[in-house]
C-alpha cells in the first residue's frame, strides 16, 4: 500500500520533471504559477493545516518578501536571489511583530484580523508608505535571477527553479511534520487545552508556526518578483490570500500531497475551463462547491499517524 503510493508520487514527479519538454511555453508558465502557489500553500499549511489557526492574510507576508526583493534589487543593486534570505527574514520579523498581540484570538476573530492585516498592507503599499514602494504602480525593472553565472529567463528555466524550490520545501516540511514541533502543532490543533495541560507552550508554538509560514512566504516573494520583474499592490490583494486558503482546504488541510494537488486544481482548473470563455470562473465556483461537498475533508486528507508497537516499547 505504502509502496504503491510512493510509486504514484514518483511517477507524478517524473512526469512533472519532463513536462517542459513536451508542453508549450504557455502551459509551462501555468505550471510555474501552480508551483509558486503550491509552495505558498505549503507555507500556509503550517499555520492553517498543522496549527489549526484561521489565517486568511498570507498575502501580506508574501508582499513583504516580494517588495523587499524588489527594493533591494532596484535601489541597492543586490542580485535577486541574494535578496532571498533577507526577504524571508523581514517577512518573518513582520509576522512576529503583528502576530504577537493577536495570536490568542479565537478562530473567526483571528480570521478577520488577518484579512484586515492584508488589506492594511495593500493600502500601505498603494499609498507609497516610507516613499519606497512606488505607490499603485509598484516597482518594475527587477533583474532576472542568476545562478552560477547562468541567467534564468525562459519559462522552462523558471520551471526548474520553482519546482526545485518546491521539492526542497516538501522535503523540509515533511521532516517538520514528523518532528517534535510538528506533533506539538497537531496536538494544539486537536485540543488546545489538553495540549497546554501536557506542557506545550501554546502561544509559543502558535507564534513559531506563524513565523515559519511567513518566512517561507517571504522567500517565495523573491521568486515571484524575479519571475514577474514587477511587483504591484494588486498582486497581494485579499483575493490572493483567499486563493491560498482555498488551495489548502480544498486539497486537504494538513496534508502535503493534498496541498500540491489543491494548487493544481485551484490554479489549473480555470485554465482548463478556458473553453467556456467568460463563464470559466462560474464553472470554477460551482466546481469548488461540489468538490467540497463530495470530499468534505479535502481531496487528499492527511493520513492518521501510525507508530509501530515494537518501536514504542523498548
Amino acid at each position: 500500500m505504502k509502496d504503491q503510493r510512493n510509486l504514484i508520487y514518483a511517477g507524478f514527479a517524473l512526469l512533472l520533471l519532463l513536462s517542459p519538454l513536451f508542453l508549450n511555453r504557455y502551459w509551462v508558465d501555468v505550471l510555474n504559477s501552480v508551483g509558486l502557489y503550491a509552495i505558498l500553500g505549503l507555507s500556509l499549511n503550517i499555520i492553517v493545516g498543522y496549527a489549526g489557526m484561521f489565517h486568511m492574510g498570507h498575502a501580506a507576508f508574501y508582499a513583504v518578501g516580494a517588495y523587499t526583493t524588489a527594493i533591494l534589487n532596484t535601489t541597492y543593486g543586490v542580485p535577486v536571489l541574494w535578496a532571498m534570505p533577507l526577504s524571508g527574514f523581514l517577512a518573518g520579523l513582520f509576522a512576529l511583530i503583528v502576530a504577537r498581540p493577536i495570536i490568542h484570538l479565537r478562530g473567526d476573530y483571528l480570521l478577520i484580523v488577518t484579512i484586515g492585516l492584508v488589506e492594511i498592507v495593500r493600502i500601505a503599499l498603494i499609498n507609497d508608505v516610507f516613499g519606497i514602494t512606488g505607490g499603485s504602480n509598484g516597482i518594475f525593472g527587477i533583474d532576472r535571477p542568476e545562478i552560477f553565472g547562468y541567467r534564468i529567463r525562459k519559462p522552462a528555466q523558471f520551471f526548474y527553479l520553482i519546482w526545485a524550490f518546491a521539492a526542497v520545501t516538501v522535503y523540509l516540511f515533511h521532516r517538520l511534520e514528523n518532528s517534535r514541533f510538528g506533533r506539538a502543532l497537531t496536538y494544539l490543533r486537536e485540543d488546545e487545552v489538553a495540549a497546554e495541560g501536557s506542557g506545550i507552550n501554546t502561544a509559543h508554538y502558535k507564534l513559531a508556526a506563524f513565523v515559519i509560514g511567513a518566512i517561507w512566504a517571504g522567500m517565495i516573494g523573491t521568486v515571484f518578483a524575479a519571475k514577474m520583474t514587477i511587483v504591484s499592490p494588486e498582486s497581494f490583494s485579499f483575493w490572493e490570500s483567499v486563493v491560498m486558503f482555498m488551495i489548502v482546504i480544498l486539497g486537504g488541510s494538513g496534508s502535503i500531497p493534498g496541498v500540491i494537488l489543491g494548487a493544481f486544481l485551484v490554479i489549473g482548473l480555470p485554465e482548463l475551463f478556458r473553453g467556456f470563455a467568460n463563464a470559466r470562473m462560474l464553472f470554477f465556483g460551482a466546481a469548488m462547491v461540489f468538490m467540497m461537498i463530495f470530499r468534505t475533508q479535502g481531496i487528499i486528507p492527511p493520513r492518521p499517524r501510525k507508530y509501530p508497537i515494537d518501536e514504542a516499547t523498548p
Partner: protein
Amino acid sequence: MEQFFQQLTNGLAVGGIYALIALGYTMVYGVLKLINFAHGDLFTIGSYLGLTLLTSMALTDKLGPFFGILLLAVMVMILVGIVGILLDQVAYRPLRESPRLSAVVSALGASIFFQNTIMLIYGASFHVYPQNILPRMVVNVFGLHIPMIRILVLLASVVMMLALYTFIQKTTIGTAIRAAAEDQGAAKLMGIDVNGVIMIVFFIGPALGGAAGLMVGLYYGQVNFTMGWIYGLKAFTAAILGGIGNIPGAMVGGILLGVIEALGAAYISIAWKDAIAFLVLILILIVRPTGLLGERVAEKI
C-alpha cells in the same frame, strides 16, 4: 462644524447599511457557526434585482415614489431570501457535519459562482440607477442641509433593525432562533425544528442584505458586480466588531464602523479610509477579544 455633522450623518447612513448586511452574517453564524462568505454577493444580487425591477416595471410611476419603492423593497427581499435558502440547501447543508473550514471554502466557491453569474447576465461595467425616482430634496435639520435620501436610508435601516429585534425577542419563532443559536442539541430535544430555524435564518439574513443592496443602489446611484466583496468584508468586520453571533452587536458594530470610516476619511486621510477601519477593529479586538458585545466564552476544561 457643518462638515462634521455632514460626515456624521453620512457615516450613520452607511453604517445602517453595513449593519443590515452584518445582521445576515451574525444570524447565520449564531445558528451554524459558519461565515457565509457568499453573503456579500447576495447583497449585490439585491441591488441588481432592484435595478431590473425598477426599470422594467416602472413601479414608481404607477404607485408614486414612496409606495413604489416600498413594494420594490419587499419584492427584492423575498427574492433574495429565496436565493439565500437555495444557497444553504445546495452549498452548506451537505457540509453540516464536516470541518468548519470546508464550509468556508464552499461559501467562497458559491461567492465566485454568484459574482460571475451577475457578470454574465449584466456585464462587467457599472450600472446606473435611474436618477429621478426619488425627488431630489434637501432637508433642513437644525440648519444642516441633509439630502432626503440619506435620511430615508438611515430611517429604513433603523426600522428594519427594530422590527428584527422585536421579532427575535418577542415571537415564538424568534425564541426558537435564539434557542438554536444557544445550543442546537438542546433545542432539538425541546422539540424545536432546527432545520426549519436554519431555513428562516437563511431567509431573513439574505433578505436584509438584499434590502441593503437596494439601498446602496438608491444612495450612490451606481452598482457593480464586484461591490459585494468589499461591502461583505466591511459588514463582516462590523459583525466581528460587535461580537459575532450577537444581533444587537451587529447593529452597533455596523453603525460604529460607518461613522469611523466617514470621519476617518474626512479628517485623517481618504486614501487610508479602509485601513483605518481595520486598524480600529484590530485595536478593539486586542483589548476585547470577542468584540464589543460578544460574551466571554469560558474555555472548556
